[in-house]
Protein backbone atom coordinates (compact mmCIF):
# COMPACT_ATOMS: atom_id res chain seq x y z
CA UNK A 1 0.00 0.00 0.00
CA UNK A 2 2.49 2.66 0.99
CA UNK A 3 5.49 1.34 -0.86
CA UNK A 4 4.81 2.49 -4.33
CA UNK A 5 3.19 5.53 -5.83
CA UNK A 6 -0.54 5.24 -6.09
CA UNK A 7 -2.24 5.46 -9.41
CA UNK A 8 -3.06 8.93 -10.64
CA UNK A 9 -6.72 8.91 -9.73
CA UNK A 10 -6.00 8.72 -5.99
CA UNK A 11 -3.46 11.51 -6.25
CA UNK A 12 -6.00 13.66 -8.03
CA UNK A 13 -8.67 12.78 -5.51
CA UNK A 14 -6.33 13.58 -2.63
CA UNK A 15 -5.28 16.87 -4.18
CA UNK A 16 -8.93 17.85 -4.40
CA UNK A 17 -9.81 16.64 -0.89
CA UNK A 18 -6.88 18.37 0.79
CA UNK A 19 -7.39 21.58 -1.14
CA UNK A 20 -11.07 21.64 -0.17
CA UNK A 21 -10.27 21.06 3.50
CA UNK A 22 -7.60 23.78 3.50
CA UNK A 23 -10.01 26.21 1.82
CA UNK A 24 -12.80 25.51 4.32
CA UNK A 25 -10.51 25.82 7.34
CA UNK A 26 -8.95 29.01 6.00
CA UNK A 27 -12.36 30.59 5.39
CA UNK A 28 -13.40 29.61 8.92
CA UNK A 29 -10.34 31.35 10.33
CA UNK A 30 -8.97 28.11 11.82
CA UNK A 31 -5.75 27.85 9.88
CA UNK A 32 -3.30 30.22 8.22
CA UNK A 33 -1.98 28.82 4.92
CA UNK A 34 1.26 30.72 5.54
CA UNK A 35 1.75 28.64 8.69
CA UNK A 36 1.53 25.49 6.57
CA UNK A 37 4.15 26.93 4.21
CA UNK A 38 6.37 27.57 7.22
CA UNK A 39 5.94 24.01 8.53
CA UNK A 40 6.72 22.49 5.14
CA UNK A 41 9.79 24.67 4.70
CA UNK A 42 11.05 23.66 8.13
CA UNK A 43 11.00 19.96 7.29
CA UNK A 44 12.21 20.45 3.72
CA UNK A 45 15.17 22.66 4.53
CA UNK A 46 15.95 22.92 8.25
CA UNK A 47 15.18 19.71 10.11
CA UNK A 48 16.64 16.54 8.64
CA UNK A 49 19.28 13.82 8.98
CA UNK A 50 22.14 16.33 8.81
CA UNK A 51 21.17 17.20 12.39
CA UNK A 52 21.55 13.61 13.52
CA UNK A 53 24.78 13.20 11.58
CA UNK A 54 26.23 16.17 13.48
CA UNK A 55 25.23 14.54 16.77
CA UNK A 56 26.84 11.21 15.81
CA UNK A 57 30.04 12.82 14.53
CA UNK A 58 30.41 14.80 17.72
CA UNK A 59 29.85 11.68 19.80
CA UNK A 60 32.73 10.05 17.90
CA UNK A 61 35.22 12.85 18.51
CA UNK A 62 34.15 14.28 21.87
CA UNK A 63 34.19 11.75 24.75
CA UNK A 64 32.50 14.18 27.15
CA UNK A 65 29.67 14.74 24.70
CA UNK A 66 29.43 10.98 24.11
CA UNK A 67 29.08 10.42 27.86
CA UNK A 68 26.43 13.14 28.09
CA UNK A 69 24.57 11.57 25.17
CA UNK A 70 24.48 8.23 26.98
CA UNK A 71 23.37 9.84 30.22
CA UNK A 72 20.70 12.26 28.93
CA UNK A 73 20.32 12.31 25.15
CA UNK A 74 17.52 14.89 25.24
CA UNK A 75 19.76 17.45 26.97
CA UNK A 76 22.87 16.58 24.98
CA UNK A 77 21.04 16.90 21.65
CA UNK A 78 19.32 20.11 22.81
CA UNK A 79 22.77 21.56 23.55
CA UNK A 80 23.41 21.36 19.79
CA UNK A 81 20.19 23.26 19.11
CA UNK A 82 18.00 20.32 18.08
CA UNK A 83 14.78 20.33 20.09
CA UNK A 84 11.07 20.02 19.64
CA UNK A 85 8.31 18.07 18.02
CA UNK A 86 8.89 14.30 17.89
CA UNK A 87 12.17 14.68 19.75
CA UNK A 88 10.89 15.75 23.16
CA UNK A 89 12.33 12.65 24.88
CA UNK A 90 15.45 11.27 23.23
CA UNK A 91 17.53 8.18 23.88
CA UNK A 92 20.72 7.34 22.01
CA UNK A 93 21.47 3.64 21.53
CA UNK A 94 25.03 2.70 20.69
CA UNK A 95 26.16 0.03 18.28
CA UNK A 96 29.27 -2.00 19.07
CA UNK A 97 31.18 -5.04 17.89
CA UNK A 98 28.59 -7.41 19.37
CA UNK A 99 25.56 -5.11 19.57
CA UNK A 100 23.41 -3.78 16.77
CA UNK A 101 20.35 -1.59 17.30
CA UNK A 102 17.50 -0.94 14.89
CA UNK A 103 14.45 1.28 15.43
CA UNK A 104 10.82 0.80 14.41
CA UNK A 105 7.34 1.94 15.37
CA UNK A 106 5.09 -1.07 14.85
CA UNK A 107 1.96 0.86 15.89
CA UNK A 108 2.33 4.00 13.79
CA UNK A 109 5.31 6.01 12.56
CA UNK A 110 7.15 7.38 15.61
CA UNK A 111 10.54 8.68 14.51
CA UNK A 112 13.01 11.22 15.91
CA UNK A 113 12.06 14.19 13.72
CA UNK A 114 14.42 16.64 15.43
CA UNK A 115 17.50 14.69 14.35
CA UNK A 116 16.29 12.75 11.28
CA UNK A 117 13.47 14.86 9.85
CA UNK A 118 10.36 13.18 8.47
CA UNK A 119 10.48 9.38 8.09
CA UNK A 120 10.83 7.70 4.70
CA UNK A 121 7.81 5.86 3.31
CA UNK A 122 9.28 2.38 3.91
CA UNK A 123 9.69 3.16 7.63
CA UNK A 124 5.98 4.02 7.93
CA UNK A 125 4.76 1.11 5.83
CA UNK A 126 3.37 -2.30 6.86
CA UNK A 127 6.21 -4.48 5.48
CA UNK A 128 8.87 -2.92 7.72
CA UNK A 129 6.61 -2.41 10.73
CA UNK A 130 5.34 -5.99 10.65
CA UNK A 131 8.57 -7.80 9.89
CA UNK A 132 11.43 -6.10 11.71
CA UNK A 133 10.36 -7.28 15.18
CA UNK A 134 9.92 -10.87 13.95
CA UNK A 135 12.85 -11.25 11.57
CA UNK A 136 15.22 -8.31 12.03
CA UNK A 137 18.22 -10.15 10.60
CA UNK A 138 16.35 -11.00 7.42
CA UNK A 139 15.09 -7.44 7.03
CA UNK A 140 18.57 -6.00 7.65
CA UNK A 141 20.08 -8.40 5.13
CA UNK A 142 17.64 -7.04 2.54
CA UNK A 143 19.11 -3.62 3.31
CA UNK A 144 22.52 -5.14 2.57
CA UNK A 145 23.50 -5.50 6.19
CA UNK A 146 24.33 -9.08 7.18
CA UNK A 147 25.21 -9.53 10.84
CA UNK A 148 26.93 -12.52 12.44
CA UNK A 149 25.10 -14.66 14.98
CA UNK A 150 27.51 -13.37 17.65
CA UNK A 151 26.01 -9.90 17.24
CA UNK A 152 23.01 -9.26 19.47
CA UNK A 153 20.29 -7.51 17.49
CA UNK A 154 18.05 -5.24 19.55
CA UNK A 155 14.90 -3.88 17.92
CA UNK A 156 13.55 -0.75 19.60
CA UNK A 157 9.78 -0.50 19.16
CA UNK A 158 8.90 3.17 19.76
CA UNK A 159 5.65 2.62 21.64
CA UNK A 160 5.77 5.74 23.86
CA UNK A 161 7.02 9.31 23.35
CA UNK A 162 10.68 8.32 23.70
CA UNK A 163 12.46 8.59 20.36
CA UNK A 164 15.51 6.48 19.58
CA UNK A 165 18.64 7.54 17.69
CA UNK A 166 21.11 4.80 16.75
CA UNK A 167 24.76 5.81 17.14
CA UNK A 168 26.56 3.71 14.53
CA UNK A 169 30.15 2.59 15.00
CA UNK A 170 32.81 4.95 13.71
CA UNK A 171 34.20 3.51 10.49
CA UNK A 172 37.82 2.40 10.29
CA UNK A 173 40.25 4.63 8.44
CA UNK A 174 38.85 7.88 9.83
CA UNK A 175 41.60 8.80 12.28
CA UNK A 176 42.18 12.52 12.18
CA UNK A 177 38.88 13.28 10.43
CA UNK A 178 37.14 16.36 11.78
CA UNK A 179 33.44 16.40 12.73
CA UNK A 180 32.33 17.76 9.37
CA UNK A 181 34.17 15.04 7.43
CA UNK A 182 32.81 12.39 9.80
CA UNK A 183 29.24 13.69 9.54
CA UNK A 184 29.39 13.12 5.78
CA UNK A 185 29.77 9.39 6.49
CA UNK A 186 26.67 9.21 8.71
CA UNK A 187 23.66 8.17 6.66
CA UNK A 188 20.04 8.38 7.73
CA UNK A 189 19.75 4.61 7.61
CA UNK A 190 22.79 4.20 9.88
CA UNK A 191 20.90 6.23 12.51
CA UNK A 192 17.75 4.10 12.09
CA UNK A 193 19.91 0.99 12.26
CA UNK A 194 19.15 -0.37 8.79
CA UNK A 195 22.64 0.54 7.64
CA UNK A 196 26.15 1.30 8.84
CA UNK A 197 28.13 4.50 8.58
CA UNK A 198 29.93 4.78 5.24
CA UNK A 199 33.57 3.83 4.81
CA UNK A 200 35.69 6.82 3.79
CA UNK A 201 36.65 7.00 0.14
CA UNK A 202 40.12 5.47 -0.33
Amino acid at each position, binding site marked *: MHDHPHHGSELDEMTARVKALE*TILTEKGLIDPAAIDEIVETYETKVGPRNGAAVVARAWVDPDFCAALKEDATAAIASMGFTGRQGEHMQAVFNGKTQHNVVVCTLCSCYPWTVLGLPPVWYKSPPYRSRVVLEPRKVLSEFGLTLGDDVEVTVWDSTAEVRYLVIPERPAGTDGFDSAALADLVTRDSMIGTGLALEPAP
Partner: protein
Amino acid sequence: MMGPHDLGGRAGFGPVLPEEDEPIFHADWEKRALGLTLCCGALGYWGIDASRHARESLHPVTYYGSSYYAIWITALTALLIRHGEVSEAELASGKALAPGKRSDSKMQAAAVADVLAKGAPADRDITAPAAFAMGDRVRLSKLSPRGHTRLPGYARGKIGVVTKVHGTHVFPDAAAHGQGEQPTWLYTISIAGTELWGATAEPCTTVRLDAWERYLEPA
Protein backbone atom coordinates in the same frame (compact mmCIF):
# COMPACT_ATOMS: atom_id res chain seq x y z
CA MET B 1 -7.31 -2.25 20.42
CA MET B 2 -5.60 -4.59 18.01
CA GLY B 3 -6.64 -2.55 15.01
CA PRO B 4 -5.15 -2.58 11.53
CA HIS B 5 -2.25 -0.47 12.78
CA ASP B 6 -1.01 -3.14 15.21
CA LEU B 7 1.37 -4.70 12.72
CA GLY B 8 4.25 -6.25 14.67
CA GLY B 9 4.76 -9.90 13.69
CA ARG B 10 2.05 -10.01 11.04
CA ALA B 11 2.74 -11.55 7.64
CA GLY B 12 1.71 -10.94 4.07
CA PHE B 13 2.73 -7.33 3.44
CA GLY B 14 5.62 -8.24 1.17
CA PRO B 15 9.19 -6.96 1.05
CA VAL B 16 10.48 -3.68 2.45
CA LEU B 17 11.01 -1.45 -0.57
CA PRO B 18 13.26 1.54 0.11
CA GLU B 19 13.13 4.17 -2.60
CA GLU B 20 16.40 5.48 -4.01
CA ASP B 21 16.84 9.21 -3.31
CA GLU B 22 13.35 9.39 -1.86
CA PRO B 23 11.88 12.89 -1.82
CA ILE B 24 10.57 14.23 1.49
CA PHE B 25 7.10 14.54 -0.05
CA HIS B 26 5.70 12.68 -3.06
CA ALA B 27 3.05 15.27 -3.98
CA ASP B 28 2.15 18.81 -3.01
CA TRP B 29 -1.00 17.61 -1.24
CA GLU B 30 1.19 15.64 1.18
CA LYS B 31 2.86 18.90 2.24
CA ARG B 32 -0.50 20.51 2.87
CA ALA B 33 -1.69 17.38 4.73
CA LEU B 34 1.26 17.57 7.12
CA GLY B 35 0.75 21.28 7.70
CA LEU B 36 -3.01 21.02 8.10
CA THR B 37 -2.62 18.24 10.67
CA LEU B 38 -0.12 20.21 12.73
CA CYS B 39 -2.08 23.45 12.48
CA CYS B 40 -5.36 21.79 13.49
CA GLY B 41 -3.61 20.18 16.47
CA ALA B 42 -2.93 23.71 17.72
CA LEU B 43 -6.69 24.29 18.06
CA GLY B 44 -6.43 22.23 21.24
CA TYR B 45 -9.30 19.80 20.78
CA TRP B 46 -7.12 16.70 20.76
CA GLY B 47 -3.62 15.55 21.63
CA ILE B 48 -1.34 13.10 19.91
CA ASP B 49 -3.05 10.07 21.48
CA ALA B 50 -6.53 10.99 20.23
CA SER B 51 -4.98 11.78 16.87
CA ARG B 52 -3.35 8.34 16.66
CA HIS B 53 -6.57 6.70 17.79
CA ALA B 54 -8.49 8.41 14.99
CA ARG B 55 -6.06 6.91 12.46
CA GLU B 56 -6.02 3.39 13.88
CA SER B 57 -9.84 3.41 14.15
CA LEU B 58 -10.22 3.58 10.38
CA HIS B 59 -11.70 0.45 8.86
CA PRO B 60 -8.92 -1.96 7.90
CA VAL B 61 -9.88 -1.70 4.24
CA THR B 62 -9.41 2.07 4.41
CA TYR B 63 -6.24 1.87 6.54
CA TYR B 64 -4.48 -0.67 4.33
CA GLY B 65 -5.77 0.88 1.12
CA SER B 66 -4.63 4.42 1.85
CA SER B 67 -1.23 6.03 1.59
CA TYR B 68 0.24 7.50 4.77
CA TYR B 69 -0.87 11.10 4.46
CA ALA B 70 -4.25 9.98 3.11
CA ILE B 71 -4.74 8.19 6.46
CA TRP B 72 -3.82 11.44 8.19
CA ILE B 73 -6.33 13.49 6.19
CA THR B 74 -9.16 10.99 6.67
CA ALA B 75 -8.53 10.89 10.42
CA LEU B 76 -8.14 14.68 10.65
CA THR B 77 -11.44 15.18 8.87
CA ALA B 78 -13.15 12.79 11.29
CA LEU B 79 -11.73 14.70 14.28
CA LEU B 80 -12.81 18.08 12.89
CA ILE B 81 -16.34 16.76 12.33
CA ARG B 82 -16.46 15.20 15.81
CA HIS B 83 -15.52 18.51 17.41
CA GLY B 84 -17.96 20.50 15.32
CA GLU B 85 -15.37 22.56 13.43
CA VAL B 86 -16.26 21.19 10.01
CA SER B 87 -19.59 19.84 8.77
CA GLU B 88 -20.46 17.27 6.13
CA ALA B 89 -22.26 20.05 4.26
CA GLU B 90 -19.08 22.12 4.19
CA LEU B 91 -17.06 19.18 2.91
CA ALA B 92 -19.67 18.51 0.23
CA SER B 93 -19.69 22.14 -0.92
CA GLY B 94 -16.00 22.89 -0.40
CA LYS B 95 -16.93 26.18 1.29
CA ALA B 96 -17.21 27.40 4.88
CA LEU B 97 -20.85 27.76 5.95
CA ALA B 98 -20.15 29.02 9.47
CA PRO B 99 -17.21 30.67 11.22
CA GLY B 100 -14.73 28.50 13.16
CA LYS B 101 -15.24 28.23 16.91
CA ARG B 102 -11.60 28.34 17.94
CA SER B 103 -10.21 30.81 15.44
CA ASP B 104 -8.53 32.56 18.39
CA SER B 105 -6.24 29.52 18.65
CA LYS B 106 -5.19 29.61 15.00
CA MET B 107 -1.49 28.88 14.63
CA GLN B 108 0.14 31.96 13.17
CA ALA B 109 2.94 31.60 10.65
CA ALA B 110 5.21 33.64 12.91
CA ALA B 111 4.64 31.18 15.76
CA VAL B 112 5.49 28.01 13.81
CA ALA B 113 9.22 27.98 14.51
CA ASP B 114 8.64 28.28 18.26
CA VAL B 115 5.84 25.72 18.33
CA LEU B 116 7.91 23.14 16.46
CA ALA B 117 11.04 23.81 18.52
CA LYS B 118 9.10 23.48 21.77
CA GLY B 119 7.19 20.32 20.89
CA ALA B 120 4.83 18.75 23.40
CA PRO B 121 6.72 16.89 26.12
CA ALA B 122 4.79 13.96 27.62
CA ASP B 123 6.54 13.77 30.99
CA ARG B 124 4.67 14.94 34.08
CA ASP B 125 5.58 15.14 37.74
CA ILE B 126 3.75 12.82 40.11
CA THR B 127 4.67 11.75 43.61
CA ALA B 128 3.62 8.08 43.50
CA PRO B 129 6.67 5.82 43.64
CA ALA B 130 7.57 3.52 40.76
CA ALA B 131 6.40 -0.06 41.31
CA PHE B 132 9.26 -1.57 39.32
CA ALA B 133 13.00 -1.07 39.14
CA MET B 134 15.79 -1.91 36.72
CA GLY B 135 16.24 -5.66 36.43
CA ASP B 136 12.73 -6.59 37.57
CA ARG B 137 11.00 -9.38 35.68
CA VAL B 138 7.55 -8.34 34.51
CA ARG B 139 4.69 -9.81 32.52
CA LEU B 140 2.99 -7.58 29.99
CA SER B 141 -0.77 -7.40 30.26
CA LYS B 142 -3.00 -9.87 28.43
CA LEU B 143 -5.85 -7.37 28.37
CA SER B 144 -7.13 -6.38 24.98
CA PRO B 145 -8.62 -2.92 25.54
CA ARG B 146 -11.32 -1.89 23.08
CA GLY B 147 -9.97 1.66 22.98
CA HIS B 148 -6.53 3.14 22.38
CA THR B 149 -3.49 1.42 23.83
CA ARG B 150 0.22 1.44 23.11
CA LEU B 151 0.87 -2.16 24.10
CA PRO B 152 1.38 -4.01 20.81
CA GLY B 153 -0.50 -7.26 20.32
CA TYR B 154 2.67 -9.29 19.75
CA ALA B 155 3.90 -8.47 23.27
CA ARG B 156 0.68 -9.25 25.19
CA GLY B 157 1.23 -11.70 28.02
CA LYS B 158 4.97 -11.95 27.38
CA ILE B 159 7.65 -11.79 30.05
CA GLY B 160 10.46 -9.27 29.94
CA VAL B 161 12.93 -7.36 32.09
CA VAL B 162 12.87 -3.68 33.04
CA THR B 163 15.95 -2.03 31.49
CA LYS B 164 15.10 1.62 32.06
CA VAL B 165 12.76 3.71 34.20
CA HIS B 166 11.78 6.77 32.16
CA GLY B 167 9.75 8.72 34.71
CA THR B 168 6.04 9.43 34.56
CA HIS B 169 4.39 10.14 31.23
CA VAL B 170 0.87 10.91 30.01
CA PHE B 171 -1.08 7.61 29.84
CA PRO B 172 -2.27 7.25 26.23
CA ASP B 173 -5.07 4.81 27.02
CA ALA B 174 -6.75 7.58 29.05
CA ALA B 175 -5.64 10.70 27.19
CA ALA B 176 -6.88 9.39 23.84
CA HIS B 177 -10.43 9.24 25.21
CA GLY B 178 -10.69 12.59 26.99
CA GLN B 179 -10.11 10.98 30.40
CA GLY B 180 -7.28 13.29 31.40
CA GLU B 181 -3.56 12.71 31.30
CA GLN B 182 -3.34 10.25 34.23
CA PRO B 183 0.49 10.34 34.32
CA THR B 184 1.89 6.84 34.86
CA TRP B 185 5.39 5.39 35.27
CA LEU B 186 6.96 4.44 31.97
CA TYR B 187 9.59 1.72 31.56
CA THR B 188 11.63 0.13 28.81
CA ILE B 189 11.03 -3.62 28.77
CA SER B 190 13.47 -5.99 27.11
CA ILE B 191 11.88 -9.14 25.72
CA ALA B 192 13.91 -12.02 24.28
CA GLY B 193 13.10 -13.00 20.72
CA THR B 194 12.46 -16.58 21.89
CA GLU B 195 9.87 -15.34 24.43
CA LEU B 196 8.00 -13.59 21.62
CA TRP B 197 8.37 -16.09 18.81
CA GLY B 198 9.56 -19.36 20.37
CA ALA B 199 11.65 -21.55 18.11
CA THR B 200 10.81 -19.38 15.10
CA ALA B 201 12.82 -16.49 16.57
CA GLU B 202 16.04 -15.52 14.86
CA PRO B 203 19.13 -16.21 16.96
CA CYS B 204 20.30 -13.63 19.46
CA THR B 205 17.54 -11.08 18.94
CA THR B 206 15.72 -8.92 21.47
CA VAL B 207 12.86 -6.46 21.26
CA ARG B 208 12.72 -3.49 23.61
CA LEU B 209 9.57 -1.45 23.91
CA ASP B 210 8.28 1.23 26.24
CA ALA B 211 5.41 0.21 28.52
CA TRP B 212 3.41 2.07 31.13
CA GLU B 213 3.12 0.60 34.60
CA ARG B 214 -0.54 -0.28 34.06
CA TYR B 215 0.53 -2.68 31.33
CA LEU B 216 2.75 -4.60 33.75
CA GLU B 217 2.55 -7.13 36.55
CA PRO B 218 5.39 -8.80 38.48
CA ALA B 219 6.61 -12.07 36.98
